[in-house]
C-alpha cells in the first residue's frame, strides 16, 4: 500500500530505481566509474528524460489540435476531420508535414533576424514550462524549490516574443495584435500570481510537489483536500486569468481573427507559423496543468492510498491527465460558446475587478490562516 509519501524526488531517481530494479544500473555505472566519467551517465539519463518529455509534449500538442477540432465539431453539430486516418487522427500529422513543406516567406520590409527569432522565443518557453510540472507521483523532471515562481516567470516570457513577432512583421495588424497581447498578459499575470500566492500561504512552499502533496487526503473521508474547496474565489480568478494567458476566446486579442486578420502572426507562414500554432497548444496544456496542480489536487486522488505503491506513479499520471484534459475541454467548450470581449472591457475586468478580488482573497486567506481556522 502507498503511504502517501513521495517515493522519489524526481524522475531521475525513478529511472535509476527502475534500472537498479532490473539490475543493470550497477554494471553500467561501474563502467562509467572506471572511466572516471560518472557525470556522463547522469547527463545521458537526463537527456533520456528530456527526450521522453519532448516526445510527450509534441504528441500532446498534436493530439490537442485534433481534439480541438473534434470538440468544436461536437459543439457545432458536425463531424470534424474524419477522412485522414481513422477518425481523422492523422490530421495533425498531415498538417505538420504540409506546413514543413510550405514556402517560408519573410516579408521584404520585415526585420529578418527578429522575424526569424520570434517563433523560437515563443516555442521554447512553451516547452520549458513542462519542467517543474508534476505529471504524477515521482514523475517530475525537476522539483524546483521555486517551481511556482518559475512557472509564472516563464509564462510571462511569451509577451516579449509576441511583441518581437508583431513588431518585426512590419504590419499594422501584427503590431496591434502584439500590443494587445502584451497589455493583456501584463494585466492578467498579476491576478494569476496573486491567487497562486494564496495557495502558497497554505503550503508554505513554492515547490509544485509540495503543493500537490498538501492536497493529498480527504476531509470526512470523501471530500478530497483540493484547494478548489478552500479557495473557490481564487480558483475562479486563476481560471479566468489563465484562459486570458492562453489567449483563447473570450480573450483572444492577440490573434482575434475578425478584427486583426491573424494578429501578431499575420505575416508568418510555413514552419514558423507552425511553431506559433504548436506553442499555443503547448500553452493550453501547460496552463491547464498548472490549474490542475494548484487547485484540483494535481495527480492526487482519494483512491491512490488503496493502490500498491508500484502502481502509484502510473495511476497518478493517468489521474493527472484526466484532470488536465477536463480543464482543456472546458477551455475548448468555452471558446466556441461565448463571443470575444472587447480589449478595454478585458483590461477593466483585469485591473478593476480581478486584482482587487485577488487581493481581498489573499487578505481573507491570510487572516483565516493566522487565526487558525484551517488548522
Amino acid at each position: 500500500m502507498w503511504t502517501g509519501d513521495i517515493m522519489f524526488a524526481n524522475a531521475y531517481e525513478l529511472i535509476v530505481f527502475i534500472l537498479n530494479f532490473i539490475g543493470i544500473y550497477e554494471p553500467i555505472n561501474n563502467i562509467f566509474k572506471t572511466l572516471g566519467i560518472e557525470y556522463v551517465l547522469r547527463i545521458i539519463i537526463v537527456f533520456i528524460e528530456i527526450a521522453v518529455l519532448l516526445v510527450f509534449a509534441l504528441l500532446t500538442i498534436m493530439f490537442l489540435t485534433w481534439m480541438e477540432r473534434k470538440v468544436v465539431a461536437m459543439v457545432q453539430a458536425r463531424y470534424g476531420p474524419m477522412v485522414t486516418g481513422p477518425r481523422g487522427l492523422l490530421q495533425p500529422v498531415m498538417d505538420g508535414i504540409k506546413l514543413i513543406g510550405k514556402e517560408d516567406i519573410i516579408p521584404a520590409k520585415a526585420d529578418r533576424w527578429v522575424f526569424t527569432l520570434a517563433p523560437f522565443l515563443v516555442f521554447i518557453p512553451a516547452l520549458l514550462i513542462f519542467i517543474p510540472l508534476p505529471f504524477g507521483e515521482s514523475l517530475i523532471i525537476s522539483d524546483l524549490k521555486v517551481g511556482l515562481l518559475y512557472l509564472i516567470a516563464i509564462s510571462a516570457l511569451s509577451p516579449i516574443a509576441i511583441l518581437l513577432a508583431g513588431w518585426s512583421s512590419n504590419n499594422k495588424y501584427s503590431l496591434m495584435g502584439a500590443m494587445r497581447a502584451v497589455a493583456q498578459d501584463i494585466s492578467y499575470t498579476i491576478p494569476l500570481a496573486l491567487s497562486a500566492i494564496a495557495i502558497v500561504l497554505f503550503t508554505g512552499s513554492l515547490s509544485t510537489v509540495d503543493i500537490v502533496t498538501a492536497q493529498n487526503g480527504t476531509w470526512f473521508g470523501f471530500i478530497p483536500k483540493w484547494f478548489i474547496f478552500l479557495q473557490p474565489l481564487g480558483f475562479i480568478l486563476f481560471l479566468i486569468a489563465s484562459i486570458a494567458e492562453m489567449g483563447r476566446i473570450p480573450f483572444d486579442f492577440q490573434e482575434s481573427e475578425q478584427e486583426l486578420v491573424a494578429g501578431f502572426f499575420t505575416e508568418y507562414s510555413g514552419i514558423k507559423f507552425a511553431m506559433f500554432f504548436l506553442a499555443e497548444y503547448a500553452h493550453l496544456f501547460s496552463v491547464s496543468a498548472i490549474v490542475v496542480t494548484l487547485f484540483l489536487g494535481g495527480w492526487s486522488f482519494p483512491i491512490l492510498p488503496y493502490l500498491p505503491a508500484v502502481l502509484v506513479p502510473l495511476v497518478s499520471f493517468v489521474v493527472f491527465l484526466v484532470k488536465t484534459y477536463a480543464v482543456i475541454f472546458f477551455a475548448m467548450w468555452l471558446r466556441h460558446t461565448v463571443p470575444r470581449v472587447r480589449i478595454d472591457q478585458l483590461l477593466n475586468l483585469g485591473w478593476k475587478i480581478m486584482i482587487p478580488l485577488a487581493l481581498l482573497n489573499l487578505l481573507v486567506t491570510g487572516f483565516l490562516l493566522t487565526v487558525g481556522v484551517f488548522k
Partner: protein
Amino acid sequence: MKTDELLINMGPVHPSTHGVLRFKLTMDGEIIRNCEIVMGYLHRGTEKLGEMKTYMQFVPYTDRLDYISAFPNNYAYVKAVEELAGIEVPLRAEYIRVLTLELNRIVNHLVMIGSLLLDLGASTMIMYGFRERENALALFDMLCGARMTFNYIKPGGVREDMPEGFIPKLNEFINDMDMRIDDYEQLVSGNEIFMGRMKNIGVMSAQDAINYGMTGPSLRGHGVNYDIRKMEPYSVYPDLDFKACMRRECDSFARYMVRIDEMRESLHILKQVVDQMPQGKAETHAKYGIAPMTGAPTAVSTYFPRIFTPPPGEVYSRIEAPKGELGFYIVSDGTIKPYRIKIRSPSFCNLTAIPKMVEGLMIPDLIAAFGTIDVVLGDVDR
C-alpha cells in the same frame, strides 16, 4: 507626448467586412477617429445590364443583388414592373409570394445573426443558423429548384405552383423554428459578454438614422415604428395580422433584437399564410402582353408572355425587404426593354450611417455595429 495617427486599411479582403468592403480607418491608438468607406469592389453594372435585357430577362439579375434574400429582390422588381404595366396577379400567386418573402426574411436574419456572432468571435451560432437555413433552403429547392438564386417570382405570378408535399414540410419547418429561436435567445441574447459588446454601441438618434437614410429593421431598432408592409401595404399583407417589431434603445443590441422579433413575427405570418392559402392558378393569363410570345406564335399559351411592353412611364415601387427599403425605379419607353432601371438598395443607404456611428469607438465596436446594420455587398455595389 507627441502621438501620431495610425492609418488602418480594413479590407477589401478582410474576414469581417462581409465580402469586399474596405474601411479606411484613421486611428488614435485603438480609437477610430475617422472612418471612410470605400466600396465598388463588387460593382457589376447591374443597372446597365438591365437596359440590355427584356423585362423578364432581368429577373435573374435581381437574384444576385442581395444574394442572401433573393425572393424580396425578385418581388420588388416584379412589383415595379407590374405597377408599370398594370398587370394583375391571382390571389394564390400573391400568397405564395408572401410565403417566400417571409421565409426568406427568416433565412436572411439567420445569416445575419450568425455572421454577427462570428464577427464577435462566437463561431457556433453561425453553424446553428446555417443548419436551420439548410432546412429553409430545402423548401426553396422544392419550390423552384434553386438554393439561392431563385428566379421564381415573375411578372404575372410565380413560375410554378407549389409542389405536392410542400405545405407539410413548411409546417414542420415552422414548428421547428419556433423552438430554435428560443435556443438562439438562450445561447446569445442573454450572454453577458454579448450584451457588453452590443449595448450602447453604435448609438444613433432616430432623427439621425432617418436623415442618414436608414430603413428597415435597422431603423426600427431606433424607435421608428415604420414598416412598408404596414404603411404602404402591398400584396396580401393587409389581410394578415402582424406587427412591426420595434425597439427604442437605438443601439446595436436593439437592432439585433429587432431581428429576433422579426423572425418570430415572420413565423406568425407564415402560419396565417398556410391557413389562408387560396386555391386557383398561380399565374395570370396572357391578356396584358402586347407583343406576342416568341417561339410559339400559333399556340394559345396559358402562360404569361415572356416578352411584353409596358406603356411608357416611370414608376418607383418599394417593398420591405429583410434589410430595409428595397425600391426599383423603372423608366419605360414603350419598348420590350426598360429604358432605365435604378435600384434603391437598402444596404447601400444603411451603410451611409456607419462612419457617423462608429466615430470614437474601437475596431471591435465597428465590427459589432457593422454587423447589426446587415449589409450584403452585392446589394451595396450592385
